């Protein structure tokens, strides 16, 4: 088993790194700076941390105003509270106003598996994807968290970064080719393409290893940028492999699977697709890993789904 790293801690390290690179980076919290990984940033740049109390809508608006004066605010909180709750602020004050604000939804997906649907975000990508000009990152391992935080600062415009809560295995070698908007082929193959994103990329990765034992030749693609999505890598997979299977910790409505299906439909490309994600329901409560398996997102379940397709 590869090394595991805490995504929030990793994000916090990345925030300090960009804080050192860009003196206009600010950290904005809403009564949970420590839980959002900001402690090292706060210690290093106390005057660049702004606390707003439990005020997510207001914080997004303030971030927009701060950005008009050349700042790069990072607003970080539990994912639903900075996405669905202040959606209109995100849409108007960040999207429509094209402001250089980075919103980080942490403990996203069902990673707060025991706290109930109020604290989960299975629709963040679906709703934010409708806002023109917003870049959506869903990093799949700790190295990628660092990469997207740096990439976010190089983009002049609104960015959403989705990170989980549970420790993530290291999947990428240091210095692997990362480019915003471009997927990463982690394993080449010709029978089936699995496209994974975010927290469950590691499950897709494990599933690939299981399938290898059955001599199924899997192409594994990491889509860390959900918008703008890498069109070429998906079209290529559609023409070169027999199936595309998408894997995401998100509702099937509006997430990665939808994006891939929409893209192929828009391009008029015929391909066999299977989407793995969570269907139209509020998920049960329980231990995270067990829940993922219950909803078909464990490595074993993903491998089983792929095998059934190929039989």
């Amino acid at each position, binding site marked *: 088993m590869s090394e595991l790293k805490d995504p929030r801690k990793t994000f916090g390290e990345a925030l300090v790194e960009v804080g050192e690179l860009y003196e206009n980076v600010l950290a904005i919290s809403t009564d949970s700076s420590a839980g959002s990984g900001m402690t090292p940033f706060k210690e290093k740049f106390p005057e660049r941390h*702004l606390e*707003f*109390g439990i*005020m997510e*809508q*207001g*914080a*997004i*608006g*303030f*971030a*927009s*105003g*701060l*950005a*008009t*004066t*050349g*700042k790069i*605010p990072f607003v970080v909180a539990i994912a639903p509270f900075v996405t669905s709750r202040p959606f*209109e*602020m995100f849409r*108007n*004050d960040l999207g*429509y*106003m*094209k402001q250089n604000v980075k919103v980080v939804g942490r403990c996203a997906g069902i990673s707060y598996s025991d706290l109930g649907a109020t604290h989960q975000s299975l629709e963040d990508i679906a709703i934010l994807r409708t806002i023109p000009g917003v870049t959506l990152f869903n990093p799949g391992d700790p190295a990628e968290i660092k990469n997207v935080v740096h990439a976010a600062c190089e983009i002049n415009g609104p960015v959403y970064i989705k990170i989980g809560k549970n420790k993530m295995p290291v999947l990428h070698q240091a210095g692997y080719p990362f480019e915003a908007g471009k997927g990463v082929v982690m394993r080449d193959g010709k029978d089936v393409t699995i496209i994974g994103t975010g927290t469950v990329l590691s499950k897709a990765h494990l599933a690939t290893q299981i399938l290898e034992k059955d001599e199924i030749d899997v192409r594994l693609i990491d889509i860390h940028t959900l918008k703008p999505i890498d069109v070429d890598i998906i079209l290529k997979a559609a023409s070169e492999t027999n199936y595309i299977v998408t894997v995401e910790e998100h509702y099937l409505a509006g997430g990665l699977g939808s994006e891939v299906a929409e893209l192929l439909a828009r391009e008029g490309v015929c391909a066999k697709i299977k989407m793995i994600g969570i269907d139209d329901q509020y998920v049960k409560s329980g231990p995270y890993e067990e829940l993922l398996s219950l909803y078909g997102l464990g490595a074993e379940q993903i491998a089983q789904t792929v095998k059934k397709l190929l039989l």
Partner: protein
Amino acid sequence: MLTVKDELQLKNITLNIRKKILRQIKAGRMGHIGGAMSIAEIITALYFKIMRVDPENPDWPMRDRFVLSAGHKCLALYAVLAEKGFFEENILDTYGSLGSKLPGHPNMFEIPGIETNTGALGHGLSIAGGMAMGLRMDGLQSKVYVIMGDGELAEGSNWEAAAACSHHKLSNILVFVDRNHLQIAGRTVDVMSYEPLDERWRAFGWSVREIDGHNIRQIVEVAEAFPFEEHKPSVIIANTVKSKGISFAEDRADFHYWKATDEEILRAEQDLLEIERRLKG
């Protein structure tokens, strides 16, 4: 300080603003007349006496910022920006036409001088607070001026922003509440009362003044005294009349949004001519 001559000049400019508001309605045959007319004096005082802005250099970093939180009042903003020379006056005649640079709620990417994309009520004060914070961080003396509607104050997000502005001691922000006592559905006290307004703002940590929002001298004198208290944001509750200047529409909720007939426009133009006659006489 405002000399009598200055005062007269500001009154004349206010009249021009009202004429330009009407001109846009005439072009588009419809528009949010009521809330635009009620802020004509305030927005004139801001752009022609109080704020430091430069139409030749709209992105000048040292400029003061203006946030029209109640974006539906944008006919007044377009009028004042045109009057000030931010864009060609004849653009006003495109209001309501396909692809006009003057949408029914302002868009900062369409014409210079617009600072925010408002229209959904209850966003402006947070954005303005962020601006005030950023300007202060940079050590700039620039101020942030905001106009809000009185009906708009029912949006809870405003009170988040009000709390944050006072918590962060943003003494470089001045809000005007256009208290015309009306919103779409009727009188504000009947629809959703936020009285006593002054006490509410005070309880949120703001320094409050109340004025006659159609008295240009009062507007200038009070705005020039801002910040009213050290370390506190300032708010002026400006008592106004919705659709001020258009006799048949004044203080009427049904002229919030006006689908104007030819005959009504003619009457409105005559009303403004009458004001002009009185000003000259």
